């Protein structure tokens, strides 16, 4: 199968959906020149009615996308930074996400929000490195975070077709990653986790940019005779409980490897689900390996300390197995 980069996969997905459905439009800051490259070529191919450079008015253009969606469009909104979700927060979680329910199920609000997840390179510091997906899923907003080019293409296409608001987190650290992506048309449905590597001794539930790290760790652990299963939820909400629980029930041990803040973070949710539904199978305490609860510091040694790392994962896995 041909190999393309994660970013190309996203970009291809977006263009394919725009060809497929004339109601798909793109909004965001600098999307016409395309800082990251995701929306490059769209102005040329689809013309100015399909792509809009916005002022620095995130709450405003987020709300505008909601209204356009209610009136039949399928806006794709790109945010330059993850933290911009905070500026638009009311329009996201209190409007776009809630309106359909509050209206008693009238209409649909098919908006896709494209958010650069952090990790592009070091040193983006405290206001450009957030991973706010726990905040969104807490408020009921559908969210996905693909970890391979194939998943990126399939999930973005599915998100654009979904008749609800969906946030797609694209980890900056993965944008350059190459991988196989089918040439023929496909989508990956929301709500399906994937076992990225099977194993027996321990389940590692890894999210987004940590999936490749977990795979490398599993490789390393395999050398030491530890067989780790790596499960990638892919879709953060809806979450595929079954695939995760099946893995944990098999291995009896689990490390939740997630790069969002710890308290009330995504790993907390995974831990709660497992503690409720697979408690009987657990042979060791659940372990969370997450980001620390501080803004990401700028300086490289500090930054490394607060982010979850492969080395720590390997250590944790060893410790967990040693406890038997």
């Amino acid at each position, binding site marked *: 199968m041909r190999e393309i980069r994660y970013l190309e996969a996203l970009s291809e997905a977006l263009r394919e959906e725009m060809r497929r459905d004339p109601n798909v439009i793109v909004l965001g800051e600098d999307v016409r020149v395309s800082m990251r490259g995701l929306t490059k070529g769209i102005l040329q191919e689809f013309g100015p009615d399909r792509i809009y450079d916005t002022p620095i008015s995130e709450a405003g253009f987020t*709300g505008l996308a909601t*209204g356009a969606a209610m009136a039949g469009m399928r806006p794709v909104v790109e945010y330059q930074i993850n933290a911009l979700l905070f500026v638009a927060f*009311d329009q996201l979680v209190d409007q776009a996400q809630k309106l359909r329910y509050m209206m008693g199920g009238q209409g649909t609000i098919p908006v896709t929000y494209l958010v650069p997840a952090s990790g592009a390179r070091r040193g983006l510091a405290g206001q450009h490195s957030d991973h706010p997906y726990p905040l969104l899923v807490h408020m009921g907003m559908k969210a996905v975070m693909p970890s391979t080019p194939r998943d990126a293409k399939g999930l973005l296409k599915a998100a654009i077709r979904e008749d609800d608001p969906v946030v797609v987190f694209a980890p900056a650290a993965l944008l350059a990653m190459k991988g196989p992506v089918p040439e023929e048309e496909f989508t990956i449905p929301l709500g399906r986790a994937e076992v990225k590597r099977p194993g027996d001794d321990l389940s590692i539930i890894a999210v987004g940019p940590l999936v490749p790290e977990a795979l490398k760790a599993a490789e390393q652990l395999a050398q030491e005779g530890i067989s780790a299963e790596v499960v990638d939820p892919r879709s953060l*909400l809806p979450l595929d409980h079954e695939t995760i629980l099946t893995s944990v029930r098999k291995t009896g041990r689990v490390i939740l490897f997630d790069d969002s803040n710890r308290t009330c973070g995504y790993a907390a949710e995974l831990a709660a689900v497992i503690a409720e539904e697979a408690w009987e199978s657990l042979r060791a305490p659940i372990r969370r390996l997450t980001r620390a609860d501080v803004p990401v510091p700028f300086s490289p040694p500090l930054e490394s300390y607060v982010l979850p790392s492969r080395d720590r994962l390997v250590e944790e896995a060893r410790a967990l197995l040693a406890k038997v």
Partner: protein
Amino acid sequence: MALDKTQLIGFYRTMRLIRRFEERVVELVNRDEIPGVTHEYVGQEAVATGVCAALRPDDVITSTHRGHGHILAKGGDPRRMMAELMGKASGYNRGRGGSMHIADLSLGIYGANGIVGAGAPIACGAALAGKLARSDRVAVSFFGDGGMNQGVVHEAMNLAAIWRLPVVFVCENNGYAISASISQMAAVERLADRAAAYGMPGKPVDGMDVLAVHAAAGEAVERARTGAGPTLLECRTYRFVGHFTAEKARGIKYRSDEEIARWRERDPVVTYPAWLSQQGIGDPALVEAEVEALLDEAVAFARQSAFPEAEEALDGMYAVTYPGLPARGF
């Protein structure tokens, strides 16, 4: 646009309907038949009436916490509104929304809204979609003098202006945001002047005069419909009652009795039918009887309607559902 008699009587009918709807609501709130909080539109009837009369059925409005008037004026069904206010399954939102969220997308009513100012960008989006669909649909965003100080309203006005969106921003300046007098919350005399900051026309309008409102709205809507871009109308009006139904009970005072009395003299639901009679147009008593009958029926309909089934509470959040979504609490 010269107005014919039917239209002129229609204005009274709408204003009277809003007034009496709200008076019924107050009664029902006080009798605990309507739960939650309602914000009555009493005193401002000429604004919604004049503006919505300038709209087509396919035009869109976004409304506010004080939305009943806008919704009735845009053609909302009083029966389904009343049922919604009582939390009944036959209500506009199947009981999910209540007063602050009534919507009817089929009538272009994109919802009341519990968050001040939040509807403004939503109206812009509906306007953009209309433009892209090559329709000449217009969107109206209602908000109050208080809403004028919300950041997202500023952003929305700028977006509409730069993209020449077919939007009319209707600021209902009733002088207060709850207890906060706009004279202390803005250092400008005329909120309409803020339009200049976005390069769009802004116009102060007598919000107690339905004909003046209608004329100004007509012009702004026409401007929008023909692609000339947005307008800001500042309709100066007043609410005769408390911010919400329960205000009285709290003993909060921020307006003088004289001020209220002065504005009451200009009550459009009194002065307008008087003018109609003077002109020999229609029979106000007939309109009033008709409105009363409609509201009797609305209240009866709402009362007779059933509450939704508790188990339905998790339906309708998503258009596309998945197992386990939304999560139950238990």
